[in-house]
């Protein structure tokens, strides 16, 4: 049964998302969507000396995708940008407390991580193509 997916914490992040909005002075902004269900996430990053100084996300979609994005922003704020490459699928599922999502819904949970990793690669490729290639290779998406 899926009732336990929609626990208080998921509904809370869905209805009161943290770090939601835009960053006008973002160093990188990246968008992606999930064609399967149309969930959309934009992530804005402000980076200083490889540290994520600020992060905001915009998006629309299901409770899982939006709550997962909200929790991800809390998880990585003030962490090194390069550490994003090490975040795994299980880290995300553990972070949102949903280890048993089916193959369709798991994409909802992981969309924000995908966008964040794309953002990281974009940030580096704008500055240092060689480093960008390295993080891209290291960055196992799922």
């Amino acid at each position: 049964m899926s009732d336990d997916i929609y626990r208080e914490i998921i509904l809370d992040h869905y209805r009161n998302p943290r770090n939601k909005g835009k960053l006008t002075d973002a160093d990188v902004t990246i968008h992606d969507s999930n064609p399967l269900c149309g969930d959309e996430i934009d992530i804005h990053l402000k980076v200083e000396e490889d540290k994520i100084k600020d992060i905001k996300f915009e998006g629309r979609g299901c409770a899982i995708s939006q709550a997962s994005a909200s929790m991800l922003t809390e998880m990585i704020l003030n962490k090194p940008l390069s550490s994003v490459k090490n975040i795994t699928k299980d880290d995300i599922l553990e972070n949102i407390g949903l280890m048993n999502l089916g193959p369709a819904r798991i994409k909802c949970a992981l969309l924000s991580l995908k966008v964040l990793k794309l953002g990281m690669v974009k940030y580096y490729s704008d500055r240092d193509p060689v480093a960008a290639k390295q993080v891209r290779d290291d960055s196992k998406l799922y």
Partner: protein
Amino acid sequence: MMQKSALNVSKIREDFPILRRKINGNKALIYLDNAATTQKPHSVINAISDYYMNYNSNIHRAVHQLAEEATVAYEMTREKIAKFINARSPNEIIFTRNATEAINLVSYSWARRNIGKGDVIVITEIEHHSNIVPWQILGDEKAAKLEYLRVDDRGYLSFQDYERYLQSNKVKLVSVSQMSNVLGTIIPIEQMIKMAHDKGIQVLIDGAQSVPHMPVNVQKMDCDFMAFSAHKMLGPTGVGVLYVKEEILEKMSPFIGGGDMIKEVHKDRTVYNDLPYKFEAGTPNIADVIGFGAAIDYLQAIGMNAVREHEIEMTKYAIKSLERVKGVTIYGPSNENHRGAVISFNIGDIHPHDLATLMNDQGIAIRSGHHCAQVLMDRLDLSATSRASFYIYNTKQEIDMFIDALERARKVFRI
């Protein structure tokens, strides 16, 4: 449960093996995703396996008995379809992979020759992506313009727009869906076709949602092209139909080149085959075309008027029931006579994908998302809707259980 119905639904249900399936251990399947694809009766499944077990063979060329039997069965489906939609001749029926391919065939074989720079193709905001993207591709290639007839919130078209475009004398093709796959709105296509023909403009009807659910008569509506898919009307996947008026078909160039669509091939030239074979290159989907024949038989036996009547009854009941659920917004016409049995809705701030997950817990299959109609979703300012769609085997009891499951979802989301 007994119900007054145009159809003997309990008898019909016995013909569909999948309806005995349990979901999540012990929940009876309640299949409400019929606008995406329908379930298949025994007769269709048996027709396909009968072909493979007893007369599997390639068609049209060999003279041995198996080939003869297979050819007859394949061509019989063409005749059945011609009768089903009241085409003048089976020569007007072309088999494709699906409705999408049928529309693309028109785009490649007809529109490429007849539409040029500055010409206009008119479609509507309700179209499925399959009736948008082929015209965008053509428009880019030919520098032709694509114009969308606006719809109101319930999917009713703006005839003012339509008049205006037709007056411009630039329109070369009108391509519209007869029924919205999101809102269920039935479009007054006979009137639209007449207005276009008064200006000498050809009309393509996307019948993917209408042909399975109501009587459709191509001669009466007088469309020039019509596309639909077998799998949305009890038939197998992998078979679509393109109907084209014979006089138009005669002037169309081939779509895909290869075997079976030719009469003679020489080093420097080819003589194409007669209609409709000129448009069916390569070995077709023989088994599934034969299976589609069994689906047409099934629908003919119960009668399309009765199908439509049953669906009006189901739609009316579903809308009435949905209106009583707190927080529900229903999209599309409220008058069941203006719509098909496809109901899009939202409930509170539950995202459709979350709702679909919760419904699945109860064994209920509904659709969620943009339904391949993003232009319409943008027009309605929605990112997604939930959609329940009915067919001949659905019952009012199933609608009651669907409503119970909605109430349950409402509680989970504390609405």
